[in-house]
C-alpha cells in the first residue's frame, strides 16, 4: 500500500466520487486537485466551473486563486458572476459542489461565517462566498476536511450553508432543488447522511478505528451497519495527483 499524506488521501477519495460528465463547481486547493485527478483518470469529460464565471477550465498550471488567469486561457466559456449563479447554478446545471467551512454539524450544516455570536463573534470567518447557494442548488455536494472534534460540533454556531437543517424533512420542506451533502470525506473515513439526514460513519480508511473517529467527532456518531474499509489510493492516482501540485502547495 502506497504511503500518502492526509490531504492526498482525501483528495483521491473525493476524486473517485466524481462521475464522468459531471459539471462541478470547483474551488481552489484540494477540490481543484480532486477534479483534475478525476479528469485524468475515470472522468475525462468532467466540466469544471468556477464562481468567477469560468466554464470548462483547462489550467496549464496549478491555479493559486479562484480567479487565476490560467483558468481562463483555454476555457470553454467565460460569463459574468450573475450568470454563473443564475443560468448555471440556480437553473440546475451544476451536478456537484464542493463545500468547506470551519464547522460541520451532525446534520451536515456548514458554518463559514462566525465562531460565537454573529454580532459579537469570537472569530469572524470569511463568509459564504458562493457556498450558501451551492449547498442549496447543486445536485450533490461533497465536503473534504480533516477530522477534528472542533470541526465537527453537534450544532454549528451559524448555518452559512444548509445540510439537512434539523433533519432531512426540514430541508425538503424548504423546497430547495439540490440533493444536499452526499458525503464528508476526512482523513479518517467517510460520513454520509442517513435517511434522516444525520451524518453517520460509513467507511474507515485502512488502519483507522471507529473509536478514533468517534473521539474526533463532536456528537455521538452513529456507525453504519455495513461499515466499509476504503480502497487505498493507487500508485497511479498518487503519481497523477502529485504531478498536479509538484510544489506541494496544497498537498503538504
Amino acid at each position: 500500500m502506497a504511503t500518502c499524506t492526509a490531504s492526498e488521501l482525501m483528495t483521491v477519495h473525493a476524486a473517485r466520487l466524481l462521475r464522468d460528465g459531471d459539471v462541478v463547481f470547483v474551488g481552489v486547493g484540494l477540490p481543484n486537485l480532486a477534479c483534475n485527478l478525476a479528469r485524468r483518470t475515470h472522468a475525462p469529460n468532467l466540466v469544471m466551473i468556477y464562481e468567477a464565471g469560468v466554464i470548462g477550465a483547462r489550467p496549464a498550471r496549478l491555479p493559486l486563486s479562484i480567479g487565476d488567469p490560467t483558468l481562463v486561457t483555454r476555457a470553454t466559456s467565460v460569463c459574468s458572476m450573475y450568470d454563473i449563479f443564475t443560468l448555471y447554478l440556480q437553473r440546475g446545471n451544476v451536478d456537484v459542489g464542493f463545500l468547506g467551512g470551519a464547522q460541520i454539524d451532525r446534520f451536515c450544516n456548514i458554518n463559514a461565517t462566525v465562531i460565537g455570536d454573529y454580532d459579537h463573534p469570537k472569530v469572524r470567518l470569511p463568509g459564504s462566498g458562493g457556498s450558501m447557494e451551492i449547498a442549496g442548488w447543486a445536485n450533490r455536494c461533497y465536503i473534504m476536511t480533516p477530522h477534528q472534534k472542533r470541526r465537527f460540533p453537534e450544532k454549528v454556531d451559524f448555518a452559512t450553508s444548509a445540510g439537512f437543517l434539523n433533519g432531512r424533512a426540514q430541508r425538503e420542506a424548504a423546497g430547495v432543488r439540490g440533493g444536499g451533502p452526499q458525503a464528508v470525506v476526512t482523513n479518517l473515513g467517510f460520513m454520509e447522511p442517513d435517511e434522516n439526514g444525520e451524518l453517520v460513519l460509513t467507511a474507515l480508511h485502512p488502519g483507522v478505528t471507529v473509536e478514533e473517529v468517534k473521539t474526533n467527532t463532536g456528537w455521538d456518531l452513529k456507525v453504519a451497519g455495513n461499515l466499509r474499509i476504503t480502497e487505498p489510493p493507487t500508485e497511479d492516482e498518487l503519481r497523477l495527483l502529485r504531478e498536479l501540485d509538484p510544489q506541494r502547495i496544497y498537498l503538504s
Partner: protein
Amino acid sequence: MKESSMSKLCSLKEAIAQNVHDGDCVYAAGFTHLIPFAAGHEIIRQGRKDLTLARATPDLIYDQMVAAGCAKKVIYSYIGNPGVGSLRIIRSALETGRLEFEEYSHFGMISRLQAGASGLPFMPMNQTAATDLERANPQYKRVTDPYSGREVVVVPALTPDVAIIHVQRCDERGNAHIWGILGEQKEAAFAAKRVILTAEEIVPEEIIRSDPNRTLIPEFVVSAVCHVPYCSHPSYTQGYYDRDNAFYLEWDKISETPESVQAWLQEWVYGVADRDEYWQKLGSETHQRLSVPPLYAAPVNYGEY
C-alpha cells in the same frame, strides 16, 4: 469514455425527429438575426402538430409554420414582417380565432425567458403606467416591493420544451460562439429543456477555447448539434451572408392568398430534401447578392498563462 464520444453531431432531420414532438412548446430564437429557418422548414416537412410557437418576434418562419398547420398557439410580443408590415397568416388566424395566443411586450417576453433561464419562478419589471395588456393577459401579475411598498409587475418563467438556436460556429459538443445581434439566444438556450444547435461552421474545440468570452452557450445545455450552412436565409448570419430583404417583401405578396402560400411551401419546403438543396435551388445570383466582404475584429490577446 473517450472525449470524442461526447459529440452531438447529427443531421437536422434527426435532431428535429428526436427533440421536437407534437404539442411541444418551441422557441426558435433570434431577433431578426440568426433565425433558424431551416429548422422551421424541417419541422413542417416532418408534419408536427399542435405546437406552441413562442418567440418575441414570430417573423416569417412562424407565419410559414402556422400556414403549414404545425401550430395551435403563439406566444409573442410583436407580430410583424420586420421592416415590411403585417404577418398576414398569423394575423388572420388570430383574428378568426383559429390560433390561441398569449401576448406580452418585448420586455415581458424576454423577462419570462430570463426567469426560465435563471431557474426563477418570475421576474419583476417596473410599472409602465400602461395597464391594458396586464389586464388582458392574466399571466401578468403584481408583487409588492418590500422596500418601498410600491408594486412591480411580474411575469412567470417560460421554459420551452425545446429551443432552436442558430450560431456562427460551435464545436461538436455544442459550445457555441455567437456575435452580432444576440437577441434572446442565450436566454432561450438556458430556459429550454432541450436545445437544438444549428451552426454555419463546426469548428475544432481549440477555436472555441481560444476565445471563451465569445462562448454564450455551453455544451451541457445542448441536445443536438447540426451543421447547417445558410440555415437562417432569408434572415442572415452576421459575417456569413446578408439578409434577403427582397424575400421579406416577396412574402408580403405570397402570403396574400392561401393558394400562393401552399404553392410556395410545396416548392421551397416540401419540395426540397434539406437546406443544402434549398440553398442550391436559390441559385448563384442570390448567393452572389447575399455575399458579404469580410471585416475582422481587432485581435484579442488572452495570454499564454
